């Protein structure tokens, strides 16, 4: 396992130039923040649902390593146009891949770049952080909190 297997070009690119970063303008349907107290990474995810229950806009904000920031950036890009059920499916598929429980599948698209994380156990939390924040936001929304 070399460094380039973990830090794929697309990850470095998103870490350097994050997409969908900053506060979400307009109404916010669900949001949640999460931090990793052992390393100080922090991420906030905001999502707006539009007509038909599809994600209309998604943004993230935070500070962290290139793995967590790139994951948040690519995740935010991929959420738009999906239903919450599809978002949850994507989240499960992705977290299973980075924790080494499942091989990468095509539905993960650009997120497949994070497959190498499974070989770096200390970094799995970084890769999963934005998705765990998303999960927290969804369960709060669905629980009416």
């Amino acid at each position, binding site marked *: 396992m070399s*460094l*380039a297997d973990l830090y794929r070009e697309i990850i470095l690119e998103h870490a350097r130039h994050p997409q969908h970063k900053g506060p979400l303008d307009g109404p916010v349907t669900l949001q949640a923040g999460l931090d990793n107290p052992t390393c100080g990474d922090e991420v906030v995810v905001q999502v707006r649902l539009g007509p038909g229950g599809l994600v209309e806009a998604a943004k993230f904000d935070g500070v*962290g390593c290139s793995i967590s920031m790139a994951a948040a950036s690519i995740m935010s890009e991929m959420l738009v146009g999906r239903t919450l059920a599809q978002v949850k499916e994507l989240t499960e598929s992705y977290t299973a891949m980075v924790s080494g429980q499942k091989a990468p599948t095509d539905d993960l698209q650009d997120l497949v770049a994070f497959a190498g994380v499974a070989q770096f156990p200390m970094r799995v939390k970084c890769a999963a952080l934005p998705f765990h924040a998303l999960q927290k936001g969804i369960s709060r929304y669905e629980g009416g909190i």
Partner: protein
Amino acid sequence: MSGRIDRRQDFPLLVGPEGAELTYLDSAATAQKPEVVLAALAHYYRYDNANVYRGVYSLAARATAAFEAAREKVARFIHADPDEVVFTRGTTESINMVAWAWARAELKPGDEILTSEAEHHSNLVPWQEAARATGAELRFVPLSEDKTVSVDSVLGAISQRTRIVALAQVSNVLGNLPLEVARISEAAHRVGAVVLIDGAQSVPHLPIDVHAMDADFVAFSGHKMMGPTGIGVLYGKRQILAAMAPFHFGGEMISHVDPEVSTYKDAPQKFEGGTPPIAQAIGLGVACDYLSGLDMAQVMAHDRRLGELAASRLREVPGVHVYGPRGDRMGVVSFNLDGVHAHDVATALDQQGICVRAGHHCCQPLMRQLGVAATARASFYAYNTEQDVDKLTAGVLSTMEFFHHVAR
């Protein structure tokens, strides 16, 4: 004082096919263990294992003698008397013992606890809680430009209301030269305050004479000084320990128990309720002897030389920021690479067999003072050499190259 020590061969983890490739630069988190300590642990369990104080059989007497001999070794190492050495689980428990057993009995509203924003959480959070419980006020020593604590600023911050001064002698992030504790003790005692020194990063790395320091309490951990985990020490002055109530109540700390009320043993046993970490204490005693054999003045000179060398080499790399004092320092060097998160630095160095710590180092207020979320940190000990500094510098250069050029 040459300060050149090369004892890698004494450390089983660092020799052998895998270990030989390892550049271990995280001794500020925990130190590697020499063969003599590992052998002492195995010997105790193989030949001497019994509970201490309780048994009348000769095996128990042997275990008790070995445990008390360890206390004497630790006492000798810090120039204390054995009855001033309380065995704990580590620095955190030692400080908590003072924050509970001493502070809650002694502090009242209007009193001040003087500490700093450069402390490890283990020398800050217990005082936040003690302040909340007693109504005392937390005060912070103003930090110098490099965010270190200076004796002069401590002296300036001590007031008539100060009841306790709680400071690390060496910061686990900044690697400052050790505070001259005797000067702080003198000023604190003049206003009737006591002094607690967090010695987690100093006791393992320099000659310590607690009586000369005149501190009332010194807390430190065994595992950072080549001993086992699960053992630490609270040194306390005899008369303060005598007046202080126990912290853990239960077996072996009592002298007489009636159904309604009990009396307690004298210090240090009254602070050591329950079966103590016997093997760990014995291992710590052996670690103290091992370090004394190296000569602590030499250990300090060695760690300083490597720390100063690493800091000056890293400062020469464009885009690298080194925190803490310029020039003289201990063997702890925190740094960041422009545009690369400390965790990414640590993963990249790990790929080259270099173990550094990355994160906030249990010092979130200090990270805010430094204006960063996290740093990488290299720390040195007697098994490190100049070659390790070379590997670190080369590793940092190639990490910079990877994140800024190759993958662009």
